[in-house]
Every structure is written in C-alpha cells, then in structure tokens.
C-alpha cells in the first residue's frame, strides 16, 4: 500500500513558470524525500527533509514540511522543459530506511 497521496496528479505549465506539487502522508515519519522519474527511466533523488526541519532549498528546488498536517510541498522555480518528469514523494519511518512512495505528480513543461 502507498502512504503518500500527491496533488495534483498532473500539472502543465510554460517554461519560466513555477511548479508546486503537494504530498500528504498518514503516519509519523523520520524524513521525507522527493524523487524525479523521467519517462522510461529510474528514479533520481532530489532532496531529503527531516521531520525536525520545516524548509529546505537545493538550487531551484524548495521543499517544505508540515508534520502537524502531515504534508509536504515541492516548488520548482523558473521551470525548464527538461523538468518534464514524474515527481514522487517518499517517506521513511524511524529505525528503518524503508521508503513508502506516493502516487506521483506528472509535470509537463512546455517550451
């Protein structure tokens, strides 16, 4: 069973616009991670945020975490056509490195 639900399921934007994806989960977590998956390829790790962190940045990526609402968001600023991919959140519990993935958001960035 999958822990995370992502919203929206699909998102289409123009290059240069910002893209925001949301992830909700059900149980307590140690950390939450975001991965990107290009069509027909494996997943690539983007960023990890721990349960005691509220916000984290990496390049054009900004991740927030609200443990009281059991939700996280991924913001991609100044999007590029190369950002077109599916984005997944994944949660890890305490004392385990087992990841439980969400259902993903399919992002399409038009040039």
């Amino acid at each position, binding site marked *: *069973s*999958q822990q*995370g639900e992502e919203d929206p399921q699909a998102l289409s934007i123009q290059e240069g616009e910002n893209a925001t994806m949301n992830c909700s989960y059900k149980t307590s977590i140690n*950390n939450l*991670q975001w*991965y990107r998956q290009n069509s*027909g*390829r*494996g*997943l*690539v*790790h983007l960023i*990890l945020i721990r349960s005691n962190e509220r916000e984290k940045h990496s390049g054009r990526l900004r991740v927030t975490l609200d443990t009281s609402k059991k939700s996280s968001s991924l913001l991609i600023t100044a999007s590029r056509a190369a950002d077109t991919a599916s984005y*997944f959140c*994944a949660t*890890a519990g305490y004392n385990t*490195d*087992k*990841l*439980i*993935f*969400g*259902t*993903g958001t399919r992002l399409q960035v038009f040039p």
Partner: protein
Amino acid sequence: EAGVVQSPRYKIIEKKQPVAFWCNPISGHNTLYWYRQNLGQGPELLIRYENEEAVDDSQLPKDRFSAERLKGVDSTLKIQPAELGDSAVYLCASSSGETQYFGPGTRLLVL
C-alpha cells in the same frame, strides 16, 4: 562511478512462463532493494537486503516470487510462473545511507 545496472531492460513473456531479472548495485552499497512499479503508480517495495540477508520480504508474493543476493553483491529476482498481473516495471535500488539510487528498471509485459 557506475550507477545501478539492471538487465534486461525489457522482457515480453507469455503467462505461466518463468522470468528473471538481474541487478548489480553501486559498488560498496550494502543495502539492495527490489521494487515493483505499476503503471501510473509509485514504486512498492518487494524485498530489501542487508548484504546477503533479506531483512524485509513482507511484500514479496512468496508463492511465485523469489530473490537471492549471493555474496552480498549482485541480486536476481525471479517470477515463476508469471501471471498477467505481473506486468510492471521492476526497479532495483541500492544505498549506503538514507538516499537510494535506482537503476533504469526492467519493463515486463506478460501476455
């Protein structure tokens, strides 16, 4: 540094036939994972190895699926006999910490 290698990339078989997938993890990574990803969904863990020991195989359908990781390096995942519902992408990942590194996956189609 080479990434996680999987073969074959694609496999088409008829139902009731056996099939095997192979994974070579990143050198030095003690933890190896097999995931199944159905169309439009996030990956779901099938089995996790710490060196050669399977430490979490609770989601592995043991009546038809088997896996091994000889000498704690390469791993094989086998399905015998395959069913129509086994059509999916089978992903292998490895890690030495909290971040998992994924291979490109094997896309299986069962006819």
